[in-house]
């Protein structure tokens, strides 16, 4: 499925994941964490970084390419 709109949407999703990851790392986000007093939520930050990268990869796959 090739579509530049889909690719753009995936880039936006990647940015959102990246921001969420940074917020988890800084301890600003405390959603669904095991220790709400921890300064950093590294595991969550790593997860969202991976999701951001995966979304960027998916965006590159989705975009229409010049032949």
């Amino acid at each position, binding site marked *: 499925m090739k579509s530049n709109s889909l690719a753009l949407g995936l880039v936006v999703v990647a940015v959102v994941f990246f921001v969420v990851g940074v917020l988890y790392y800084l301890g600003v986000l405390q959603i*669904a964490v*095991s220790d709400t007093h921890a300064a950093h939520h590294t595991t969550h930050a790593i997860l969202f970084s991976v999701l951001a990268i995966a979304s960027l990869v998916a965006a590159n796959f989705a*975009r229409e390419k010049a032949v």
Partner: protein
Amino acid sequence: MGLLQGATELFPVSSLGHSVIIPSLLHWSFKQSDPTFVPFLVLLHLGTAGALLVLYRVEWVAIIRGFFTAAVRGRITTEPERLAMLLLTGTIPAGILGVYFETRIKSLFASPYVAAGFLIVNGILLLGFETLRRRAERRAALHTKTRVEQEQSFAQAERISFRAAAIIGACQALAFLPGISRSGVTIGGGLLAGLRHQEAARFSFLLATPVILAAGAVEVPQLFASGVPVGEYLAAAVLSGVAAYASARFLLRYFRSGRLDPYGLYCIAAGAVSLVLLTLHA
């Protein structure tokens, strides 16, 4: 514990279940509520992941190279590139479920009785996977062929669909239940997706490596900061790696023609015997 974990991690018999049940049966002084217990187990898992990296070192180089090539190009052209993307697809659901549910589920079910019960469930699952595989073999009229010929009729890991890879990855979450084997459910999932036994085992081992490494990278610093005998723990991790390497070599050879049945029967028997012994010792 190192040898036990390394040997049972890759066999489809649940390392977590064994590491909960056996210390209880043998009255070893491991406290599962101790804050160093989980990082210690993660260190043993790192030994396992190290063994898998050594075993698949050439393949991992091709996979990592394939990932970057395909990611930049935006198109898959070779088998290592496809395998890299399949592994990424399988790792994401496991990562999400692991980060959000693993600790809660493990603490909810961290009892030797529950682990023994789930070990029996694991055995039934393994036998169920093989029953479904035999049905697929009958449908494809393969029952007159030899086992090796039967296996050759099924696919290689690179050929499964991305949806199947995601489902197999998500199946790993079942292994948060002590007694359910991660390799068992992923090998079983691979069989349902139409893979050869050996290829299902290979995909399971490759899928395990990034998740175990990521978990280790996060947990190990806590272990070093907790004042535990790090030297002894590292020795256990090395033993775990040696046992895992030997196990992986054995299993890849075994699955050329072998099935999951013996492990299923073992899990049912081990779970039942453990339940009886735990009840008698209570």
